[in-house]
Each structure stands twice: as C-alpha cells, then as structure tokens.
C-alpha cells in the first residue's frame, strides 16, 4: 500500500496575503517514491482515489481524483472539473488547482500522511 492523504492549504493570494488554513483539499491517492501519483494503482482502485474540498464557510465537496484530458483532475459531485497543475506532491511544494473558469489557485502541500 502506498496510499496517502495529501493536505493542500490555500497559499498566498491577492485576497489572502498569508494564505488560509481554512481553505483546502484532502486528496487520497497512491504515491510513487518520487511523490508522483501512481497511475497503475489508481486504475486498479479508482473509487479509492478521492478528494474532499474544505472551504471556510461553504459546504464540503467530495469526489474523485481522475485522469481528465490527459491530466490529473478533481471531479467533485455537482461541480465542474478542476485540474491539477502537477502530478507530483512533496511537503512544502506549491501546486495550482485550475478552477473551471481557467483561473489557477495556488495551494501549499501542508502534509502528506501515509495510510496503512
């Protein structure tokens, strides 16, 4: 098992000059040693690759992590797909999540916890 829960927290933006810990995502995916998403393992158990979005005063969103147009993306129920700017996660990295309108929102990899 190389499944992990990755916690992304909003990084510095215009509206949040110091980022925001109350806005983020929990992404559950299998990771290779270099931090990249293990695509074979996701293919074997696609339903286990899940995402939950936490946003300060909004209801949770949840869904799947899946390949969308050749990239990794987040497919939350009742919402349009969001795309990940990277397929590699290491603590402290900054990654972008591209909103449906094409606006990239920066997040910081706050934590990676191995699921055993």
């Amino acid at each position, binding site marked *: *098992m190389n499944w992990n*829960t990755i916690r992304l927290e909003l990084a510095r933006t215009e509206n949040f000059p110091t980022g925001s810990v109350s806005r983020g995502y929990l992404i559950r995916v299998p990771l290779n040693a270099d931090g990249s998403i293990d695509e074979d393992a996701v293919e074997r158990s696609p339903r286990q690759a899940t995402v*939950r979005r936490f946003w300060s005063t909004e209801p949770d969103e949840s869904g799947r992590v899946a390949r969308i147009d050749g990239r990794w993306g987040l497919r939350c129920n009742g919402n349009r797909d969001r795309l990940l700017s990277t397929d590699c996660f290491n603590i402290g990295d900054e990654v972008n999540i591209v909103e449906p309108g094409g606006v990239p929102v920066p997040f910081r990899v706050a934590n990676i916890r191995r699921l055993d």
Partner: protein
Amino acid sequence: MDKRVDGTRSTGSAGESHLRSILATVPDAMVVIDESGIILSFSAAAEKMFGYAEPEVIGENVSMLMPSPDRERHDGYLKAYRETGVRKIIGIGRVTTGRRRDGNTFPIELSIGEAWIDDQRIFTGFVHDITQRQEVEGRLQDLQSELAHVGRVSEMGTLASSLAHELNQPLTAVATYCEGARELLAGELDDDTVSTIREALADAAAECIRAGEIVRRMRDFMSHGETEHKIESLPKLVTEANALALVGSREHGIEVQVSLDRTAEAVFVDRVQIQQVFVNLIRNAIEAMAESPVRSLTISSALGPEGFVTICIEDTGSGISDSLAPQLFQPFITSKEAGMGIGLSICRTIIEAHGGRIWFEPGADRGTIFKFTVPIAGDDQ
C-alpha cells in the same frame, strides 16, 4: 466546573495580558470570536486539539473548526442570534462535533459565553473533547433512559408471542369451566351440583380477571414506548447523533462527511428514537470499518419519496455477508462476537413506527449503504 461565562459585561480594563494568562492555562480549548464569527484568540489547548497554530487562525471564520452541515450554516446561526436574541446554545451548551486540521471529526461538548468588551460583543467557546470521556455517559443518561423505552418497543414482537401464550392459558381454563358448568346444568341440579357450578363460574371469572391483568401489563409496558412526534431539524439531529455515536469510539481516523438536502430539513419525528437509529447505524458503520484501509463515513439525505426524506449512511467497511443479509433486521441476528443483534431490529421498529422504511444496499466499491425514510414536516403540523 461550570464552564459557562454568561452575559458578563467587562469594563475592558481586564486587558489583553489577563486574557492571555487565562488562555494559556484553561484546560479546555477556548476560542474567542467576534459577533460575525471571526476568531480573535485561540488557546494553547485549542491549538493542540484542532491542529492549528493561533497565528494561522486569527482572522479566520470559526466555522473552519466545524464539519458540514454546521460549517456553512454557522454564519446564519450568528445572524439569527443578532437579530432575534433567541439563545439556542449560549449559556446552554451542547454536544456536537468539531473538525481537526486533518479533516477528521470528533465529538465535543461546547459551551458558549457572551461578553461585552468596550461595546464590542464577543463570544467565548469552551470546547471539551469527549471522545474518551466516560462521564459523558452521565450527561447522556436522560437520553439513554429514554432509549431504553425504545428498546422495549422493539421487544414487543417477542412480547406479542409470549402474550399470546399467556392469554391462551386463562382462556382455555375459562372455556373448560364454562363447558363443565354447561354439562352439569344439563343434569340433576342438587345442592352439590349447584355448588360445583358456582365454583366453576367463580374460577372462570377469576381466570377472566387474570387475562385482563395480562392485557393491562401489556398496556403499561407499551405506554413507556409512546412516541412524541414533533417538527425537528434534520441537520441538528444528525450533528448530535454523530457526536453521540463517536463518543467512546476507539476507532480513529474516520472521515465523516455530512451532506444534507437543504430542501428537506424539517422532519416530523420522535427525536430520541430517530437519533437512536442514527447512533446504531453510525456505530455499526464504524465497527464495520475497523479493519478497512479506507475509513470514510458519509451521511446524506435527499428529498423523496413523496412526503419523506431518504437518509443514507454509507461506510467503506467489510460489507454484509450474503448469508446474513436476508435476515439482517431480525432480532438476535449478528455478526459481532459481543453483539446482541437487536440494534437493527430496533431501527426497523422505529422507522416503521414513523411510517418509513429501512433497507440496505452494497456500497459503490465495497462497504454498505443503509437507507431509511422519515416523514418530512408538512403544512398540517
């Protein structure tokens, strides 16, 4: 310890350093917010409990510490209080759930005080983690004694068969005495015969009284199980039941996700009974996931069928074996070594008494989805 600070007015001269010293020493987590819900201070215990450092959360909305459905509704709660002044939690306290930074939820006892500092209204929340707390049983005692009655209701099926047996005895005796008396009446009526007939009829009357006693006992028994249907808020029911179900749970790392249909929030139910159903199903789900690598519990609701809301409780546990499935809601059926097997039969009795139904389906991947329907509150209530 009385943790409620209630309606206190401060001159403001207490000063920040005083507040700091309190914050550093209070054993329960303490979170101070302004009247719009923005976090003003966050005690050391709160940092430990929720996993955030104070500088990270100052200026954030306190709703970040709550799971759905409270998170998105909290601003509304504050607004309603500012506008109406009706206290739903301030000075009262309640059992609810908190959300840690890692996304996990845990049961808390929350007490809130209101204070004025320099004409600024602030709210102070004292948060006590009750995951492992044994004494909470005391607080929940009222609820549990009510739940015991619910248990009795479900025993009624068993009771009915023993009742039939018990009633059968006096009725058979009455028939025998009456038949004997009828036969004696057909013969010669000397003093002895009349006396025997009189005795037989007296015995028959006594047996009838005995039968009446049995019926009365049955009625007493049932009256404890009388239900009290009222209009209740489903989100509140779920939040509370969720907290109750997590109390004393030795399982950690369970993600609980609640997503409720906003168009079906008012339900017409007996609160205690429906919470019992939630607690039973959530605890079952938690136990079913004990060995699972992925432990995720989803509670959702959707309007329908007509007049009802359907509630789903989905786990990612081991699923239900085919051999157990057909009789799952029967009493004394269990896969647990220490279980009595009456939990689900209680659930079914309660749901059916509400006019709803309960069933289960296999989960999308593995695990199980329990579903039940309860009536929504209509205009006539």
